[in-house]
């Protein structure tokens, strides 16, 4: 398998008082082939953002391996890690707080090249203009400050900054969730166009199923720090196997006629259990509509259900 990014049994545990720990990410594995997009969906606290941060080496990795095209990202440190940084970059959720309000756009986009000493310093200003054009902004806007742009434009600036190092992988953490829907469509189309044109590989974190359906080739669903289902996008929507995936798809608001005035269509009751005191068996059992006694005692493994689809459910 020719994967650009390979993640194996990734764990991120955060210690909390009295020797306990939060199992934010607890044994996550996936591969992303070059030029493809893997989406991670899940609700708050499922560990999807922490997974993204760990891949970026922005969250401490407790155990497991992250490998980017032969570079053992999870085990290198210091100068070696810095040298590898240009190859993986990130676009953040909040286009307001992720750009320095005191810097002009040219300096924001130039900064990764300056910090990582990429290319000839004399050429960098020209490169900034190219990047602005690439994300659909006029080069003459480079001398403005972030507050002079709309949310969608700011997210384009964040994307230009990520592209500045000519990365292989871009990690997106909810890149359009702060944008209005009409602007969201513009940014999503841009993200897809860039991949078509440059062969970039994407790890795409989102809570919005419509968005991941549109952007991703493969989708992993996370619940309480673990992947509970993974499959190609079309299959996961056509035949979700895990009860949590099924509930998530059922709860997603939709314009479909059968959703009209159904008052939400809630399938699940309650909230996820605490990530500190994890249940012994399946982590979803307490909310699962079909759980049996076995589920409460034995945690299910993520296993192949079909040739391309995996689910972690005893009953799938």
């Amino acid at each position: 398998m020719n994967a650009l990014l390979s993640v194996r049994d990734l764990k991120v545990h955060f210690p909390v008082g009295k020797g306990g720990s939060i199992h934010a990410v607890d044994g996550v594995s996936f591969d992303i082939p070059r030029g493809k997009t893997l989406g991670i969906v899940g609700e708050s606290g499922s560990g999807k953002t922490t997974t993204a941060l760990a891949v970026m080496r922005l969250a401490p990795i407790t155990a497991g391996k992250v490998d980017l095209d032969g570079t053992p990202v999870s085990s290198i440190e210091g100068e070696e890690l810095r040298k590898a940084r240009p190859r993986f970059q990130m676009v953040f959720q909040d286009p307001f707080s992720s750009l320095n309000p005191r810097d002009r756009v040219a300096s924001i986009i130039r900064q990764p090249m300056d910090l990582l000493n990429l290319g000839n310093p004399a050429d960098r200003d020209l490169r900034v203009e190219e990047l602005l054009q690439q994300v659909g902004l006029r080069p003459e806007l480079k001398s403005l400050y972030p507050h002079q742009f709309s949310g969608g434009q700011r997210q384009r600036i964040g994307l230009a900054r990520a592209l500045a190092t000519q990365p292989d992988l871009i990690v997106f953490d909810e890149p359009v969730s702060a944008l209005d829907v009409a602007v969201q469509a513009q940014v999503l189309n841009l993200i897809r166009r860039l991949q078509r044109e440059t062969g970039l590989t994407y790890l795409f974190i989102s809570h919005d199923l419509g968005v991941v359906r549109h952007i991703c080739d493969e989708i992993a669903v996370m619940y309480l720090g673990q992947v509970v289902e993974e499959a190609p996008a079309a299959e996961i929507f056509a035949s979700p196997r895990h009860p949590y995936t099924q509930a998530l798809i059922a709860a997603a608001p939709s314009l479909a006629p059968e959703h009209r005035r159904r008052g939400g269509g809630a399938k699940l009751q309650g909230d996820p259990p605490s990530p500190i005191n994890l249940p012994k068996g399946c982590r979803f059992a307490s909310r699962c509509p079909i759980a049996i006694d076995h589920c409460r005692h034995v945690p299910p493994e993520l296993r192949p259900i079909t040739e391309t689809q995996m689910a972690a459910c005893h009953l799938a």
Partner: protein
Amino acid sequence: MVEPVLDIRNLKVDFATRNGVAHVLDDISFTVEPGELLGIVGESGCGKSMTALSILGLIPSPPGKIVGGSINFQGRDLTKLSQAEMRKIRGGDIAMIFQEPMTSLNPVFTCGEQIAEAVRLHQGVSPKAARARAVEMLRAVGIPEPEMRADAYPHQLSGGMRQRVMIAMALSCEPKLLIADEPTTALDVTVQAQIFGLLDDLRRRTGTAIILITHDMGAIAEMADKVAVMYAGRVIERGPADAVLDDPGHPYTRGLLASIPRIDADPDADLPEIPGIVPALTDLGRGCAFEPRCKLAVDRCRLAQPPHFPMSSDHSAACIHLEGRVIPA
């Protein structure tokens, strides 16, 4: 014909800004009947939340001012009431729930105390009766172990639980009208579905009218009986939810619906975009505010703001291309 709970006619709100007067609400009209759920949908800055604040008499003034129109609620024009009279209505006959359940609850009082305070203020009952009412309301919104939860502080509850507390507080005085401003935006989809189910159940059981303010067309589809679509301070389309979603008349409504990434759409096709961004409200020309972004714009669109043209007996949109359209009987 049922008498509407709320009847807003030609409401205009102006804000004085450094860049001139902004017509934040321009000629807004709609009605809500008992037990009905009206969805108000639009992008940031279109005037959705300002409409809610006008109804509650909470427009910051200055710089804001209601400069025209009326807000009729149970036979009284709210724009003419004093602050003292409005205080009696707010939280009583008209209640509101906000987007952020963390910041809209007071962190230093327990949930039970906060609900009981609202009850005592509006119904003048004893502290003991108010506390009992608070527990009863927490039970009604589906909070497990309500006696115990009444003594919990907001930070001890999850986001979904906090929003339930807000709803319990809003409903504790049996309002005739509940305004919910993006009530589930901060919540996960499975929890959003629970809150939607709760609101839907309550209005069917108690006959409380609900105005749901949202940017999410999906939420409109799930919840609304009828819809008002807002753009740049105006209602540009209104009608029954099915009619607006299935046969949108205004190019903006069509664009908004088309640009939503859908689970059942062809993932290989690019999303249809609405080019450009929402105009500044201080910078509107004489014509249709959507004209600069509209694919169908013609010279005439720039001359004057289009009036609403009917598409059926209860569905209309403000676009000149609908002029002369034959209305089905």
